[in-house]
């Protein structure tokens, strides 16, 4: 594992992105406000270049940098997913920010720093690297939530997010220290080896697991560690919500996979209630129940989608706890699909918001079909995908999770899951109801820029495309999980 230049090639995507961030940060200082488009275009180009770099890096599984950095197929797929979803979030943000005089380079720099943090998390080979990436992500997000300095709600949300996030980080660190105490290792492969040998102190290890799991649950926003999500989603500018409601889920999934299966796989599904499977069950069922039921009564779409996220996290956990190849594949498929769906949903709200008018309540969507049938159709596809109705991809995401559960002999969980999906369908239908069945309040025409219009079309039609041809995405996830 000696250091040589070829090691750096494995880190090429991160290096490309970091250099781009540095260049853009400096360059942006010398640009007039009128030339801000340049920063925007450059940021998109940087993300695109990073995707190219990820694709270029050979994805055979290997560990570099003394166990700190892992390259494997799952990491590469997840990186491509989070970069692509990030591109969507950036495109949706442009006009919204410009309308509010917030169109600044910092937004894109902070966004890209968050993405860089997530890429580090995705590739983490040990607890320390993971924590490093996590903090880079979290600090960038705190700043982004407070991006509109004049918004009291935004500042309040950022404050809440920061305090609770710091607490969760503390828990995670505490858990890591216990795992380290029990196993004497910080890299996942080492931890796994010690756990397998059975020499670790089980009590300390279990305590460590609990605290680490709390950290994961907080990042996902699973009940009972979800309290931050509704306030932050609602308080942040909608374009920031689009970003933080979608991309970090992919990183959180990677974090869960790295810690739970690669590091602490010995405490996995075979251990049942002795390991993390039982804990995830509780988190999943609570998330499904609370998320779906509380979402029913929300009038604010951002808040409703926050609760809906919580319920989707329940589904992702169901996939994870089913374990084996099928469960992880299903969870990975679900996470990627969910991120793509969520960014579209929030992105549409960003498109509908005009100067001085936030589209965030249900009644703001009234009669959208009359004002813009195309945007209405895209929102319908996104909502049906979230509800899991075929022929949208959300259905297959749920189906694969159900299949994994039945395979793991957890039929009762499958029944709980479908029961709550039906409850959940109601609030998605309510959105479609106001779009299609109600009369518009405002007749103001919707002006969407070409870039946002194109992005939302691609995003919405992707729901349909992957709903009719899910095989390609599924195969990618299967290959990635198999190579772990």
């Amino acid at each position, binding site marked *: 594992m000696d250091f040589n230049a070829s090691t750096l090639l494995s880190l090429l995507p991160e290096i490309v992105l970091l250099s781009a961030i540095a260049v853009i940060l400096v360059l942006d200082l010398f640009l007039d406000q009128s030339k801000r488009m340049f920063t925007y275009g450059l940021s998109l180009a940087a993300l695109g270049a990073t995707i190219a770099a990820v694709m270029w890096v050979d994805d055979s599984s290997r560990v570099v940098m003394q166990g700190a950095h892992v390259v494997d197929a799952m990491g590469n797929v997840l990186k491509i997913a989070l970069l692509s979803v990030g591109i969507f979030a950036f495109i949706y943000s442009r006009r919204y920010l410009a309308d509010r005089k917030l169109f600044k380079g910092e937004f894109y720099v902070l966004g890209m720093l968050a993405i860089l943090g997530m890429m580090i998390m995705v590739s983490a080979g040990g607890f320390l690297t993971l924590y490093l990436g996590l903090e880079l992500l979290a600090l960038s997000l705190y700043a982004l939530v407070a991006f509109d300095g004049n918004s009291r709600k935004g500042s309040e949300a950022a404050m809440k997010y920061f305090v609770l996030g710091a607490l969760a980080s503390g828990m995670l660190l505490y858990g890591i220290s216990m795992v380290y105490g029990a196993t004497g290792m910080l890299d996942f492969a080492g931890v796994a080896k010690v756990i397998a040998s059975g020499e670790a102190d089980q009590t300390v290890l279990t305590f460590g697991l609990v605290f680490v799991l709390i950290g994961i649950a907080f990042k996902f926003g699973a009940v009972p560690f979800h309290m931050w999500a509704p306030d932050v989603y609602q308080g942040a500018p909608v374009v920031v919500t689009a970003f933080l409601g979608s991309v970090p889920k992919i990183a959180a999934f990677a974090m869960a996979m790295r810690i739970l299966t690669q590091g602490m796989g010995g405490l996995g599904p075979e251990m049942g209630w002795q390991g993390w499977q039982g804990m995830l069950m509780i988190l999943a069922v609570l998330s499904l129940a609370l998320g779906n039921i509380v979402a029913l009564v929300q009038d604010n779409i951002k808040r409703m989608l926050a609760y809906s996220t919580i319920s989707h996290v329940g589904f992702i956990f169901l996939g994870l706890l089913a374990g084996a190849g099928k469960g992880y594949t299903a969870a990975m498929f679900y996470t990627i699909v969910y991120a793509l769906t969520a960014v579209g949903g929030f992105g549409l709200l960003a498109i509908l918001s005009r100067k001085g008018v936030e589209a965030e309540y249900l009644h703001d969507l009234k009669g959208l*079909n009359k004002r813009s*049938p195309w945007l209405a159709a895209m929102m319908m596809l996104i909502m*049906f995908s979230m509800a899991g*109705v*075929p*022929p949208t991809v959300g*259905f*297959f995401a749920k*189906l*694969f999770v*159900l*299949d994994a559960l*039945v*395979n793991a002999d957890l*039929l009762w969980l*499958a*029944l709980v899951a*479908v*029961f709550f*999906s*039906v409850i959940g*369908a*109601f609030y998605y*239908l*309510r959105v*479609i*109801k106001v779009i*299609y*069945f109600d009369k518009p309040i405002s007749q103001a025409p919707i002006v969407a820029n070409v870039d946002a219009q194109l992005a939302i079309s691609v995003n919405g039609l992707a729901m349909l495309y992957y709903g009719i041809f*899910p*095989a390609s995405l*599924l*195969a990618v996830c*299967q290959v990635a999980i198999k190579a772990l």
Partner: protein
Amino acid sequence: MSADWPILSAVIWLPVLGGLLVLFSGDKAPNISRWLALVVSVLTFLLSLSLYSGFDSGTAAMQFQENIPWIESFKVNYHLGVDGISMPLIILTTFITILVVIAGWQVIQYKPSQYMAAFLIMEGLMVGVFSALDAMLFYVFWEAMLIPMFLIIGIWGGPNRVYATIKFFLYTFLGSVFMLVALVYMYFQSGSMSILDFHTLKLGLTEQILIFLAFLAAFAVKVPMWPVHTWLPDAHVEAPTGGSVILAAIMLKIGGYGFLRFSLPITPDASKELDWLIIGMSLIAVVYIGFVALVQKDMKKLIAYSSIAHMGFVTLGFFIAFIIFAKPDVSNGVILGMQGGMVQMVSHGFISAAMFLCVGVLYDRMHSRQIADYGGVVNTMPWFAAFMVFFAMANAGLPGTSGFVGEFMVILASFRADFWFAFLAATTLIVGAAYTLWMVKRVVFGDVANDKVAALQDINKREALVLGSLAIAVLVLGLWPEPLVRVMDASITNLVNHIAVSKL
């Protein structure tokens, strides 16, 4: 037998793609989207006729099969095929869709392109449901079908449409997710998603009963059977005429079809154990819902309740089988009951469509569905009155119309099972006649009730074409049901032989 060219795919995707085309044609020139929709639906109907002409009625095997992998790692295939049970229902679907397109020609002024597109897309999806031989493909079509119907009721429906359409969607969705879990469970047991593999899958009695109940949740809501029928009157009353027609004529049949394709062959022993449940629910539907229909003040509601009662005959005919099996001397009663159920499905497809279209004709002129607002329509609309009385007679089961054939076959079969079943079922001949004819008496006959009725215009050529073609269908099927019975004979016999053998 496999087709030389993918005729089933064509019947599914032609209307779906045509529907998208209509959608994009926009509302600037509504006549273009109307004509486009008509052309697409007629072409689809003509295509589907080749299913009948090319059909080999001597075999129970699936015909016109197409099978290509869809999600390979999940063993899900794009597997289509029809037998004598599904083929008539496909032709019913394509036929009724043409009528719906014509019936909505002038009535629908708000976004006609979206209206026409929704019906065409739904047509393709419904044909998909009838022809899918892969459980997952079936489920995708089955659920996807809800989306256009949800929009049709919600956008073009009556004042209380939002409540009705959300109730419709959630009821059906709740029923079907349990079916999804059952399908996934069987996939886990058999390692295949093929419905035909499920037919031969060995299952224990407890498993069968749970699977049966999951299917029941899905299909009973769709049929709908008492006591999960309450969404239907709401949906019918609020839906636009075309929506009611499709709901009554085809969507309800999908529930009945589900029993024949899934419940009976996959879980024969559970069906035998729980046949009392289905028979009981069917008889309640026939008798009790018949009385409920009697007291309705709204014409659409009355027909909706009469639909539930008529569908009770379908489920009765299907599940009477196990009691007859127990009596060795009258074996052919089983086939009679099932064929009766099938004939009843097709016939009810024509009659209920016609009844809803008749109410639609009146509603377009008076904007009221209340029976009390009418009276003496025959004086101003003699042609319409003739059609309405004819269809009412058919609905009441007058011999010579298709309504008689199915009911009579089912009643005959029930006689072989138990006298009292037949007795209760036969009360429909009285109650059904009572509610239908009483409504006709109050609406059509008597003196002209008010000025509005006095100002009514008789039906135009377009309406006459729609009602006339349905009248011909009802008469032909009533006088000469042999072509229909012949195509489904082999498949029904095969099904009966299949369920006679225990899977345990």
